[in-house]
């Protein structure tokens, strides 16, 4: 297993956090992992993004030109990253924020209304957990239980009040991921 995942959206959508959560989870499962914030050949421009590489083997480059997975939180990021995903890769798209649907036909595409669902649950900021849940259905990089465990640990006592809503969002993401069959 070796996946290069880019998480991209606006600042405030929890893009960096969810990338780190995946990285912490991968570490908890003793996998090799790197996390880098908006650095790389195609970065910058108002959006927040991070690249996570998860692998069974020691990781060489933490940067990549063609990620195997892109988790896209907003329209500008779709415009920027859709073309870069490696053929046969996975594109997880927050449909609540899209102006145009993705056009690539050589990718697995999962569309889900993450922002709408998050505000339904009670906090738009948990759309990141919804996106992560859905992604893990299509790329089982780490165990769901480990994600939950690590999330609780990372929120700690100071942010314990955010536990329930984040876990709910994660569950919803998983359900949405399951019902949203990837269109290829």
């Amino acid at each position, binding site marked *: 297993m070796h996946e290069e995942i880019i998480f991209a959206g606006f600042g405030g959508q929890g893009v960096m956090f969810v990338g*780190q959560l995946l*990285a*912490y989870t991968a*570490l908890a499962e003793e996998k*090799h*992992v*790197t*996390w*880098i*914030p908006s*650095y*790389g*050949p195609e970065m910058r421009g108002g959006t927040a993004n991070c690249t996570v590489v998860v692998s069974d083997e020691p*990781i*060489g*480059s*933490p*940067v*990549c*030109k*063609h990620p195997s997975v892109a988790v896209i939180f907003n329209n500008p990021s779709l415009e920027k990253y859709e073309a870069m995903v490696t053929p046969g890769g996975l594109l997880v798209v927050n449909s609540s924020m899209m102006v145009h649907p993705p056009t690539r036909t050589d990718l697995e595409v999962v569309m889900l209304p993450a922002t709408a669902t998050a505000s339904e649950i009670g906090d738009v900021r948990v759309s990141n957990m919804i996106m992560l849940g859905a992604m893990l259905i299509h790329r089982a990089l780490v165990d769901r239980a480990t994600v939950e465990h690590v999330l609780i640990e990372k929120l700690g006592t100071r942010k314990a009040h955010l536990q329930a809503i984040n876990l709910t969002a994660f569950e919803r993401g998983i359900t949405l991921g399951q019902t949203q069959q990837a269109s290829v």
Partner: protein
Amino acid sequence: MAVELLKGNEAIAEAAIRAGLEAYFGYPITPQTEILEHMARRMPDLGRAFIQAESEVASINMVYGAACTGARAMTSSSSPGISLMQEGFSYIACSEVPCVVVDVMRGGPGLGNIDPSQADYFQVTRSAGHGDFHAIVLAPASVQEAIDLMVEAFDLAEKYRTLVFVVADGLLGQMMEPAQLPPMKPVHKNRPDWALTGAVNREPNIITSLELNAPALEEVNLRLQAKLAEIRKHEQRWAELWTDDAKLVVVGYGMSGRIAQTAVKQARREGMKVGLLRPISLWPFPEKRLSTLADQVDAFLVIEMNAGQMVDDVRLSAGGQVPVSFYGRMGGVVPVPEEIYHEITTLYEKLTSGE
């Protein structure tokens, strides 16, 4: 100690603390500010010295002062700040005071940007200040290596009474990956006999870089050069992969060496006899290993995030035996494995198609 997910800059700072750092002085500059911030949080709690100085000029002179007492002292900065510290580096080198400096390089010249770069190679290996001197320069390629080299940097600085740079680029500084911190060492209370500790029952100790008498200053220089020769003999460090039967060896340090590794691996998978040599000490440059490899390989390919500053060192080590090509990106652009792979294949085809 457990394996943790650590950010490069914070790992560097904590590793220094655990290596017994007694005094930190610095000035904010991206992309290394997390080092300063980590020190601000940790050092006062531990009862150790921390000052956010008014400039990099002041920082390095505070380091110089603290180190004169035999305390483990360091500063960290990024390229423009390193330029301002050069005066201090030269004084430190001449007066042989052990100091450690971290340079998390960013895009230049000038104010440049805050993206990753390796364009300070010449500055740290060749021209860290006026006069004849070199500092030891260590270039980690992972968070773990950054931790290990930080600890080693202090030991080397003290062993040779010299300035040691640990150079990273913004990418390593900002990256998070699993790594293990060393156990906490206490600050060492035993001061070396040359240190400024108060002239109690002994002649005064003086730390100076001034010697107005030319033959005497030449003596000082000869002593420094002899020390540098020792360092050159004993402290060359590098890592290598798949070099045994390699026809082409890619040479890159720090993050570009690591990025190149992915490209080299890909080439190997496709049956090309390509290897990787990653200098860990940039000064002293691993010239011994490079020159042996020059007997075996058909070409070297240097990869850097600059205009090819290390190429000279590789050429000198190869002694004109084999061609040395270069591929690099500048201005904060990070090369990706695909680009390097492309360079490798183009070059490899040329080599094997019988020139």
